[in-house]
């Protein structure tokens, strides 16, 4: 058997496949269907300091080979998370990464510090790229200077690995990646969803309650692969690649473009067994090609 461990700077994962934020609940939903030990990590849905009700429905609509969503960071808030969800997550035995979102720098700092001291979390993922909330989030993720400052502050408030999740909704994602690196990020994850809209021609109104939403799924994969490749060329910290990964060939594209690990999001909805199938096919692939680990493949397509 090949070694499937992924080494992302200070973070070591047992497999290179992560369940992307907001797509895997707290693990319980999927534990009836599969063994969770194939997950490199589970990224918990965007957590905010105060509870957030989320957006008015409809929150999702299907598009050609894609999904447009505007959930709006519905979550129970930090206190309920610490009291109720985190203990349940620990029971599942899955390495947990918490995705955090704030409206202000201070909110991010408080979230990071509290989660860090709660323990049992292997890394934090800074959400600076949610396209579906009014304040904060994406605002930090689209201006290099504010992003660098934010990452710096969070970096100072916690000592566990820090991942910054980048938005594709920018002119030059490399600038933001460099800003996150300068601020002290250990790892970058990309991409979040791409802003989009679907209009119902009968009602002559946007379908989603929030009007616009974020596009995920195979439809946006080429955009994501290109961005991973660009960031890999210009930044020296590890990358978690994601965007429409459904099977082995998709994951390989991200790895060859420079991702040291990959995340599956929308794929979990289509086939709940996407991650276990992907992990076992990555294993067979490495075996077949005679690689002892993923490392020689990471960025191999980037010249």
């Amino acid at each position, binding site marked *: 058997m090949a070694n499937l461990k992924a080494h992302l700077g200070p973070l070591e994962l047992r497999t290179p496949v992560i369940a992307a934020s907001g797509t895997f609940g707290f693990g319980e939903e999927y534990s009836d269907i599969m063994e969770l030990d194939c997950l490199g990590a589970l990224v918990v849905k965007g957590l905010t300091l105060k509870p957030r009700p989320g957006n008015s429905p409809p929150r999702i609509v*299907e598009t050609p080979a894609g999904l447009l969503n505007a959930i709006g960071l519905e979550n129970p808030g930090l206190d309920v998370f610490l009291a109720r969800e985190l203990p349940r997550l620990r029971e599942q035995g899955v390495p947990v990464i918490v995705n955090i979102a704030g409206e202000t720098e201070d909110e991010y700092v408080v979230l990071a510090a509290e989660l860090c001291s709660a323990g049992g979390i292997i890394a934090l993922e800074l959400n600076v790229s949610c396209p579906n909330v009014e304040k904060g989030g994406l605002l930090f993720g689209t201006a290099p200077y504010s992003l660098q400052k934010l990452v710096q502050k969070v970096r100072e408030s916690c000592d566990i690995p820090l991942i910054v999740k980048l938005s594709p909704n920018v002119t030059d994602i490399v600038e933001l990646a460099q800003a996150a690196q300068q601020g002290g990020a250990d790892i970058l994850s990309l991409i979040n969803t791409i802003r989009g809209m679907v209009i119902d021609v009968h009602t002559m109104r946007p379908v989603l309650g929030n009007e616009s939403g974020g596009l995920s799924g*195979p439809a946006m994969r080429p955009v994501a692969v290109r961005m991973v490749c660009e960031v890999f060329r210009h930044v020296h910290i590890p990358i978690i690649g994601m965007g429409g990964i459904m099977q082995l060939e998709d994951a390989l594209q991200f790895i060859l473009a420079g991702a040291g690990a990959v995340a599956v999001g929308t794929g979990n909805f*289509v086939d709940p067994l996407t991650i276990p199938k992907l992990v076992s096919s990555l294993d067979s692939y490495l075996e077949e090609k005679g690689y002892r680990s993923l490392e020689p493949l990471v960025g191999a397509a980037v010249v």
Partner: protein
Amino acid sequence: MLARAVVKEISKISRRIYLLELEEERLAKEASPGQFLHIRVSSVYAPLLRRPFSVAGVNDNNNTVQVLFAEIGEGTRLLSQLSRGAYVDCLGPLGSGFKCFSEETPAVLIAGGMGAAPLLFLANSLVQQKREVFMFYGAPSFSEMIPLQLFSTEGLNVIIATEDGSSGFHGLVTEAFQDSLQRGLKPGQVFACGARAMLKVLAEDSRQRNYHLQVSLEESMACGIGACRGCAVKVKKEQELPVPFARVCKEGPVFDAREVVW
């Protein structure tokens, strides 16, 4: 929860409506009225997402579950083209179904259009429990109705309504029900499934006349198992959820009408 069911039979039973019988022992044993199956309609990625369908009935004798669906888009078109013996990737049975706690009779079931699917399952199970059941079933026109032989269970009283008057009561199914109330029908529990506007009318009526109503709701759905929070429905806070939204796929699809924010 994940099942590989076999198409036992698929038949076109009216202009747009199909009856699909899926053979899978666990689904047939576990499914209860109001629950649904989340079916993958394509092995490629367009259409991408699974489609949720209420279970319309089970047959314990041959381990089958029934699904009734109307061909309205690409997903249901692909489903309609399945042939006997084909494998179908199903998640299920999912969600919280109807809760029949009241022994008061009669039970009244009110169905609009394809909303008849989960109520047919409920009707059959109530009739088996020797409960007196009235089922109101409405559609725009007789030609768009599910064939009435599917409602021909012994002991089930069926009242049909069509908006164009082509059969039965001339008007909306909610009007047919209210008409019966005025003629003296005294419902125990009431169960309804149909368009949101129809359910809203009933929710208001149940509040005024003080009868207990459960509704089965529909919302666009991604995961089907409670993880993505895509199928949110606004509910009153008393439900003790940290946020004022419940998930149609998990807490629902059946809700107490008083809990829903209409």
